[in-house]
Structure formats: C-alpha cells, structure tokens
C-alpha cells in the first residue's frame, strides 16, 4: 500500500481509479501492449530467433496480404466466396432466428419443448455434424452454408426471445385495452421493444457465422479463405499462411466494428 493511502486512510479498493499509471492512460497502455506484441514478433523473426519457416516478420505478412487483396484470382477464388457464404449463412440465420423467437414467444408449448435444447446447444461441438453434411451434400457450399446457419441461429433465437419477453406487462395491457390487432401489436410494440436484444443477438450471430464458415473451409473444402490457409500450411508456404491469417483478423475486426456500429444505432436503450 502506498504512502498516500496510509496518510488519507482510504483503503485501496474504494479509491477512485487513477487516470494514469506510469504516465500513460489506459488507452495508451492498450496500444503499448499491441505494439509491443507486434514488435516482438517482428524482432524475433528479423533477428533469427525463430526460423522463417515457422514465423515471418509482420511487415512481410502485411506486404503479402496487400498483394493478395489486389490479386484477382485470389479475390474471386478465396476471399469473395468466403464473404458470400458468411453473408448468406448470416442472413438465413437472422430471418430464421427472429421468426423462431417469435414462434417460441407465442407458443408456450414450443418454448417449453425447445428451451432445454437451446440451453445445451452451444455445449455440443456443432462442427461434429460437418462430416455428416459432407457425406450427404458433398464438399460444395451447401454443407458450409447449413452449418453456418445452424451455428449462428440459436444465439439469435435466444436473444430475440429475451427481447420479446422484455415487453412490460402494463404495455401489453394497454395494447389490449386499445384492441390492438395482431399485426399492429407485432410492428408497433413487439418488434420495437425487442430491437436492442435482437441487435445484440445478430452481432453475436455474425461472429458465429464467420467462425463456422472459416472453420469448415479450414477442415475440409475446395476453396475459400479458410481452405487457403490450411493449404498454405500443408504446402509450407509460411508467408501465404500468415498473410491469410492477418487478412482474416482484419476482416473479422472490420465486420465486427462495422456491424457493431450499425446495430448500436438501432439500440434505443443506449440513447
């Protein structure tokens, strides 16, 4: 415990959070952490501490990634198919998820019947069914799409259900007193009330769809970004592998931030 605390007698755990530690704000420290990580990789590789077969400098990864993004063959065979599958799987899961959420909210029987399965869904490694889908539908886009939808739909259902259930009883009584029709009830009360929770679910759903597409491509596929990385690994193209990994990190970050920004605009609770 520092001298200041002794003199004022305020225990550490209730003192206000300091603005700076060691002259840096918390954001400064976060940036420092990331920069230090990048520099460590760069130095370890440049100084030959780790062989270039295993690790390449970050600058080399970035250079190769920039080359790949401007290469039409890479764009049409790897990047665009992956993005297309993520978008399609996510869109299907979004529509299906909100619809099933609504059904479960309307029907107590279905909600009772499905709830235990929804609870344990993410405990089961869903990717285990990928081999089944491959045997049934081949190694094309169909099994990837099905798995991406299946993997992301449940989190969307769960959040939509929370949203629909968040309508206060008083509001529902008011709607009933005003003889609101089924359709008006849905568009005027239910959906607007649930939008923040649905948005939270969609945000997670997008992350899940991305994971599912990349993982299935990675395990077994004939094209796509995930396949590109696993291929580069198997053929010892270390630079390509790291460039692909870097690209995916960037894609994930941009998707996350972009969609996060759109969805938080929908969130009236934060205004």
């Amino acid at each position, binding site marked *: *415990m520092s001298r200041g605390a002794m003199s004022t007698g305020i*225990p*550490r*755990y*209730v003192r206000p*959070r300091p603005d700076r*530690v060691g002259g840096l704000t*918390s954001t400064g420290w*976060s940036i420092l*952490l*990331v920069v230090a990580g990048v520099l460590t990789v760069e130095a370890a590789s440049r100084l030959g501490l780790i062989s270039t077969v*295993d*690790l390449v400098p970050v600058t080399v990864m970035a250079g190769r990634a920039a080359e790949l993004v401007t290469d039409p063959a890479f764009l049409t065979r790897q990047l665009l198919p992956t993005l297309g599958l993520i978008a399609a799987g996510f869109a299907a899961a979004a529509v299906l998820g909100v619809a099933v959420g609504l059904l479960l*909210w*309307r029907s*107590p029987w279905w909600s*009772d*019947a*499905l*709830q*235990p*399965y929804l*609870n*344990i869904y*993410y*405990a*089961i*490694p*869903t*990717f*285990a069914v990928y*081999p*089944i889908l491959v*045997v049934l539908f081949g190694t094309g886009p169909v099994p990837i799409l099905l798995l991406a939808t299946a993997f992301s739909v449940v989190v969307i259902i769960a959040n939509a259900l929370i949203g629909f*259930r968040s*309508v206060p009883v008083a509001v*529902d*009584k008011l709607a*009933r007193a005003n003889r*609101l*029709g089924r359709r008006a*009830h849905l568009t005027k009360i239910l959906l607007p009330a649930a939008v923040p929770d649905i948005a939270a679910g969609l945000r997670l759903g997008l*992350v899940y769809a*991305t*994971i599912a597409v*990349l*993982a299935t491509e*990675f*395990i*077994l596929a004939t094209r796509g*970004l*995930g396949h590109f*990385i*696993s291929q580069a*690994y198997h053929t010892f193209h270390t630079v390509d*592998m790291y460039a692909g990994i870097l690209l*995916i*990190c960037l894609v*994930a*970050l941009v998707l996350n931030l972009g969609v996060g920004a759109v969805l938080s605009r929908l969130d009236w609770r934060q205004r």
Partner: protein
Amino acid sequence: MIIDPILRGPRGRGGLRRLLPPVLLAVLLVAGWTIAAAALNSSVFPGPGQTVDRLLLNLDATRFQESTADTLLRLSVSWLLVVAVGGAIGFLIGLSRFWTDVFSPVVYAVYSIPKIVLFPLFLVFLGLGEASQIGFAFFSGVIPMVLMTLNATAGTPLAPLKLAASLRMGTWPVVRTVVLPAALPAIATALRLTFGLTFLGLIIAEMFTGVSGLGYELLRNVVLAQMEDIVGGVLLIALIAVAPTTLLRVLEMRVARRFGGGDV
C-alpha cells in the same frame, strides 16, 4: 385476437409437466428419423437403431476405446487449465479497474478473431501431436474465461466495498469476503460456457490433425463414407458434452442461490 402469453398469468404447473414437451419433442424427432431412414432405405442415411448398434459395436473395439479415452483425457486437462489459468488471470486483472480498462479491449479484439485460423500456429510451434490439440483447446476456452472472470470481478458492487472501508477492513479480507462471493455466480456460468468452447476447440483440432481422438475418427470415416460410424460418433460426442454441462448447470444454480445472481 390477443395473443399474449404473459397476460395468461403464471403457468401453475409442476416440474414433471414441464418436462413433457421436451421429451415429447425428442420422441417425435427420433420417430421422424426412424421413418425417414426406413423410407429412404439408404446406406448413407442410417436409422437410430442401426446407429446405436454400430456405436455400441465401436465402443467394444480397442482402437475406438483408445480414441474416446484420448479425447476425454485431453478435454479434462485443457478445461482444468482453462479454469485455473483463465480464472486466475481474469480475477487478478479484474481487481484493478485501471488494468481492466487496459486489457479488456485487447482481449476482446483477440476474442473476435475466428480462433480456428490460428490453429496452424499451434501446429508450427507445438508440433503435430497431442500438445497442439490440448494447446488449441486451451486457447479456445481461456480467452472467454479471462473475459468473463474479469467482468465478474470488476463488476463488484460499490456499496459493500464502501461498507468494508468504513469497517477498516484490509485488502485481502475484502477480496476474500466481498469480491470473490460477488464474482462467484458469473464465474460458475463461465465454467459451464468455457467447457463447451474448450470441447469445440478440441474436436476441431482433432479433426484437422492427429492419429486418435473422436474428432479424428469422424473425419476418417468421411473418407470411408461410413455414415453409421459418423452419426454414432456425433451421438457419443453429444453425450460426452451434455453430461458435464448438466452437472455444471446444477452447480451454477446452487452458487446463484447461495451468493445471489442474475439470470437463473
């Protein structure tokens, strides 16, 4: 016209009647599966009976037994490491609001990367064997464990801390009697969720590489187009996942009842 389940008031039904719909649904699904399999009568679409028979047959074979044992061992080791390492790191960071603000954005950024694409790094640095499978399973679980523990610890309500301060309690007694009990319900939830994530990471790792393990068995049977073996394997994996999850859920509810907690 109207609609609302909430307006019907609390459903005054006992526990047993609540169990009826899910059980009925399961029975319907198995029946549908049986009928579909019988109608198609195809070797790539086995019925439930055939699948369970094949699974039991497989479980008698030494190689499959070894694969199952390998998976169970790897899962236990990596999950225990996730809980110990992730829990400790998250708790320690969460004790300081400043360092929570430093680490949260960085850990969140790592969390949002689809971890699977980092798997080659594990192969490169840990080799093609068990170490990289356990390492990847650990990595899949430890980041969420750190995040959830960190949030739980940092979210300790201020009022009891102020009370402790006015009682002039030292830092460690406060950590033990205030912070830890406040964080426990969320940590119990984290135990359950990270179990699933660790298992998922392990199965993916085993699918991509390896010479044993249930994930490896699944993918090997794709090449052989052995649908009965695959479906049986998936069934076994689901069973392995569900049993501990159910126990952890019970633990979670007990902890929540004892220490108070939100969503149970």
